[in-house]
């Protein structure tokens, strides 16, 4: 039976969907069968980041409400055979979600995949509660800034009281991903460092992702950054994906600012 992992955040725009796309692909490249599901009904985006927007015929609402088979709705990634994708509905709104139907959908995905990654709406939006309801684990994405961290604490609070697992007396393991770390600002004391954030939120860390200009380029092309061997952010996602699969991977310090000679020279001329 597969493991259900919800990718959550407090506010929107912190990189949840980018994280889902990259970690999903990372897990698939690690020889595990993985499906990424876009739960952000009405704000479909995961298809773009995976480069699959032209191949969406049926979405999850078709599967839940219109009797379309999962096999028809699931889209296989061109990049990895192990990765499948289920689109969010773009025309409906979040009120179409219903616990019983979601439970059924997730149960059938669990039979076919090792990992089911759910891209949740932001924690303050409706639809969030439905996404976390059946999660076994959660990856909490934050940016090192006050509003993101504060809101994520509330999203964690909702997870800890509304998920099915918690209601049954079990726990949902939560892991923190700190995204968009600007090492130079951290060094200058202008940005919260990871130790501070961990102190405040008190959940274990699963990865730190440096700010990376290549991310925009990657989403422009619909090719997740994890495919880029020389991107720091891509390598950080790769490490997180391996940790999600249960492998022990050493943490890399992405907060100390190191500028190579070449970067320094570039800096002078830019």
């Amino acid at each position, binding site marked *: 039976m597969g493991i259900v992992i919800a990718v959550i955040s407090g506010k929107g725009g912190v990189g949840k969907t980018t994280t889902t796309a990259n970690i999903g692909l990372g897990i698939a490249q690690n020889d595990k069968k993985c499906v990424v599901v876009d739960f952000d009904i009405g704000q479909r985006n995961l298809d773009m980041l995976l480069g699959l927007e032209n191949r969406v015929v049926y979405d999850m609402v078709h599967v839940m409400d219109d009797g379309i088979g999962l096999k028809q709705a699931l889209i296989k990634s061109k990049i990895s055979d192990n990765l499948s994708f289920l689109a969010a509905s773009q025309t409906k709104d979040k009120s179409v979600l219903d616990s019983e139907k979601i439970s059924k959908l997730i149960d059938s995905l669990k039979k076919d995949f090792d990992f089911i990654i759910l891209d949740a709406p932001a924690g303050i939006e409706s639809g969030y509660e439905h996404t976390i309801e059946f999660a076994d684990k959660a990856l909490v994405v934050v940016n090192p800034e006050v509003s993101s961290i504060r809101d994520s604490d509330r999203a964690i*609070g909702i997870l800890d009281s509304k998920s099915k697992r918690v209601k049954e007396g079990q726990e949902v393991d939560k892991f923190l991903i700190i995204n968009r770390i600007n090492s130079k600002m951290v060094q200058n004391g202008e940005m919260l460092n990871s130790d501070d954030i961990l102190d405040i939120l008190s959940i274990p860390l699963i990865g730190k992702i440096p700010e990376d200009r290549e991310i925009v380029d990657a989403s422009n092309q619909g090719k997740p950054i994890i495919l880029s061997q020389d991107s720091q952010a891509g390598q950080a996602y790769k490490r997180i994906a391996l940790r999600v699969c249960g492998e022990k991977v050493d943490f890399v310090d992405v907060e100390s600012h190191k500028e190579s000679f070449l970067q320094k020279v570039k800096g002078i001329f830019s």
Partner: protein
Amino acid sequence: MTFPWFGKKNSAKTAKDRLTIAIMSDRSNNSFPFLDELKAEIIEVVKKYIDVKEVHIQKEAEDGIEALSINVELKK
């Protein structure tokens, strides 16, 4: 002694202090997302016997002991 025009800004420290306090207060206020349901159910139960006007629920913490104090206000 620090010279603000030379030294680092160090606003990260300010952020941490402010966040710690804000989140502490958020947690004590929002620690029960099921608060409304709890209130409604208590009203239902008590209403079988006496008329209820309102229910106040508060979380209190003292000496490491956490408690829920529930005050049921009756209709006159």
